[in-house]
């Protein structure tokens, strides 16, 4: 599935995945609209995409505990199930975050404020999103902070 990258071919998602992704995606869209209606759109997209990437990292990290011997005997993470990954990963995180909104905001920003301003905005968001995902994953996995 898309949220847990793999080089191997994946089987086509079953029917129930579509229902869960629809519900999660609608919920994610609803929460994103809350941000977009209450904040300046550029600022809203920045928070939405960074939070969303961090959230997906966190749940993917938590899900990875199921295969980690260090957590053997402890309660299995509820995020390890395929259903949870469909609803929270492909559904909620996917519907909450947006690349099209970011691309549109970038084009408008270049038009209004110039190319440099637009490029800084989109690159900051790209880099912050990657760090947010990696940080969320490490926290979820239990690798950081080490206790």
């Amino acid at each position, binding site marked *: *599935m*898309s*949220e*847990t*990258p*793999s*080089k191997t*071919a*994946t089987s*086509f*998602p079953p029917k129930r*995945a*579509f229902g869960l*992704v*629809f*519900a*999660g*995606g*609608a919920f*994610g*869209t*609803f929460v*994103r*609209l809350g941000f*977009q209606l209450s904040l300046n759109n550029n600022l809203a997209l920045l928070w*939405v*995409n960074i939070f*969303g*990437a961090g*959230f*997906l*990292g966190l749940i*993917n990290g938590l899900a990875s505990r199921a295969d980690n011997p260090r957590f053997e005997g402890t309660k299995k993470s509820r995020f390890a199930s395929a259903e949870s990954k*469909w609803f929270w*990963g*492909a*559904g909620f*995180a*996917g*519907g*909450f*975050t*947006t*690349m*099209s*909104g*970011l*691309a*549109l905001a*970038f*084009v*408008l920003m270049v038009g209004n404020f110039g190319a440099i301003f637009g490029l800084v905005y*989109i690159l900051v968001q*790209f880099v912050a*999103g*990657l760090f*947010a*995902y*990696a940080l969320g*994953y490490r926290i979820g996995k239990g690798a950081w902070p080490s206790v």
Partner: protein
Amino acid sequence: MFNLPGAAAWLLILLATVVAGGLGSMARLALSHWHGKLPWGILVGNSVASLVAGFGFSLGSSSSYVGQQITALLMPLLSLGLAGGLSTFSSWAAQTVHYYRQGDNRLGTYNLLLNLVGPVACVILGVLLGGVLLK
């Protein structure tokens, strides 16, 4: 819109936008199956969504009568709902981090740059398309 009181019209648009977000997410799930050396399905989803978002935006700035009439419903439904649900930033981040962690720096950079260039080009195309169709 549709002679409904303001709050009812607003709620209807909100509901339609949320449902469109769910439908866009389902389309993204189907596309995500297309995963070769790079997650092509997600790239195509992000690019098509950007085309839709650009087109939706041009509806909002249309001065034509038809454009203005359908803008109230279609603009949020297309740009915020359908395109927002179809595109994803989080999955792109997950896949790109995965490539870099695996040491596939080349693929990570390709995925990063393609998801910058593709969607941005498609937004511009969508705006131009909307401008031509609603002239």
